[in-house]
């Protein structure tokens, strides 16, 4: 893998080039994640990352300007994987809305599990207003939009099936905030197997879908 990235041939077709680019990005991310798990997010330098990925430090900057960009790429990849997984799981696609949302968030958390420390560091970093990782960063929001559209699609299906009153795009935003809250709780959860998160997730979803189904609070 390392060899391949070094030998990238500039004369190859455009499609091949994008493919190789993506491969290199993945290789860098893999190296970075290993190092983050080992040394922590803040202690890991771009120099060490590029050495581990088998590329020059300058090359790394062609792909990721900062470690924050690496983190953004990480989340983008993970979210893309969640969407792919959802499309392929036929049982979940037929489940009730509360279960769908549960399964989506749980699947995401499960993917994040090996990188808990790294995610924690990213969360702290996201508190800095100027950070690219901040929830208010437009770049970050742009990347998130694809995911929110995916969620919006699921909510729209539920609306069409009469499972939900029309919630519009607000539903997707509410989901985004809820997802963030759950990840924050999950990071703090010291219960065995993080079962408190499971319980919280389940109860919140059951109650909120129940309220929404009944048309708000008037039941």
């Amino acid at each position, binding site marked *: 893998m390392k060899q391949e990235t070094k030998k990238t041939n500039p004369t190859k077709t455009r499609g091949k080039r994008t493919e190789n680019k993506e491969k290199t990005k993945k290789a860098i991310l893999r190296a970075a994640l290993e190092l983050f798990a080992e040394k922590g997010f803040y202690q890991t330098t771009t120099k060490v990352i590029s050495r581990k990925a088998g590329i020059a430090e300058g090359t790394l900057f062609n792909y990721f300007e900062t470690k924050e960009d690496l983190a953004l790429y990480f989340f983008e990849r993970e979210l893309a994987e969640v969407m792919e997984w959802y499309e392929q799981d036929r*049982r*979940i696609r037929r*489940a*009730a809305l*509360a*279960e769908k949302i*549960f*399964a989506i968030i*749980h699947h995401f958390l499960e993917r994040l599990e090996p990188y808990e420390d790294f995610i924690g560091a990213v969360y702290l970093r996201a508190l800095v207003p100027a950070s690219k990782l901040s929830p208010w960063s437009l770049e970050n929001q742009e990347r998130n939009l694809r995911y929110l559209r995916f969620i919006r699609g699921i909510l729209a299906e539920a609306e069409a099936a009469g499972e939900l009153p029309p919630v519009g795009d607000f539903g997707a935003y509410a989901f985004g905030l809820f997802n963030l809250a759950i990840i924050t*709780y999950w990071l703090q959860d010291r*219960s*065995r*197997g*993080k*079962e*408190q998160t*499971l*319980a*919280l997730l*389940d*109860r*919140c979803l*059951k*109650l909120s879908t*129940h*309220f929404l189904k*009944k048309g708000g*609070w*008037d*039941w």
Partner: protein
Amino acid sequence: MKRAYTETGLHRGLRLGKLGFSLTGSYLGYQLQNLFLNGETRDERRKSFQSKTSRKIREELQSLKGPAMKIGQALSMQSHLLPEDVIKELANLQMQAPAMHPSLARAQFKASLGKYPEDVYRDFTPEPFAAASLGQVHRAVTKAGEQVAVKIQYPAIRSAIENDFKMLRSTAFLGRLTGHVPASVIAELEQGILQETDYVAEADNIDFFREHLKPLPYVKVPDVFRQLSTDRVLTMSYLDGEPMMEFLARRPAFEVRNLVGARLMALFNYQFHTVKAIHADPHPGNYLIDANGAIGLVDFGCVKRFSPRIIELNQCLRDHVWTEGEEQARRILSLGCGPEIFKRPRVAKRVLEDAIDLYVMLFPSSSGTRNIVDFSDGSVLKKCAEIGNRNFRDKLMYPEFVFTSRAEMGLYNVLHLLGAKLDLTAIEAELNGLATREPAKIL
């Protein structure tokens, strides 16, 4: 009326929401959520359920005002004179956590066992086939091909229960309870309910009872698969047979019902006198009846071991020792209530009379004549309920009796549902190997 209901609903909903979103969690929260969500989705989920009963139950459930009431209800579960269906429904709700959808059950399984069900079983059914205390039960087939039942506990239920009891002990609730439920009773209740959250302890109980109930050929206890179990996941061999309520719904002949009743009574007595420990969860769903009238016992979460004092008390009452004079009557009172009871002579007299009434009803004669107790008319259950209410009123509550009386009331309730007519003296005599009269006909 409609308006009033909406307001109550909204109020309850806000309260529920608060509980639901509180991060610490509360068992009561689960309970209310469960009751409430059940109420709202009842029509969809259980079309067969009659609306009249449903309304009654809802009214009943709405009267649950907080943990204090919840505990009161737990203590006197079957002693309030409620319609049978309501008792049934309350008994069902008693120890049930909210249902888990397949994704949650699977996630919780992994959180506890470290692997997904599909990785450790050859086959696993994502939908549960039964509700269990604090969780639900799924069917599965082990890699070796054994049919098993897998009980999965709802996540974080233990800490939720602990939180509730913490709240219960706090001043606000204590005020409401003062004089009614002594701290020792609450402690016993907490210990008993928490015991049910530990499936390792339950696995030990299953092994204990399987060993000790061997002499009763008509009682079946499952095997435990320890390597596929944790404190929150319990894999047991699957027992054939249908739950008591389904068995009854088929309207079996009196002889069959009575045989099952006699066996249940014998099982109870055998546990009391020989095993000295009892399966104390009276939920009718915990008895599985097979085609031959054999009884499969499931759910060993709540097990109580008897102190010699309670066994002695029971024997005294069965033997009608009060007929031997005041000394013996005082012995009964002191075994049951402790010496403090003599400071309240009026209450002591009432307690003794009630105990005598009940035991004369159950064991009409301690001599060898045949005496049939008719459970079908509910008079035994009613008598127990009346006594329970009087004891509650006179603030006579003892931790030792919390779960044993629950077990006993549960048994009488099932015998009532079975419409059993039993000769308790003969059943006991047969168990003691003393019976000479037609033993084969009794069991």
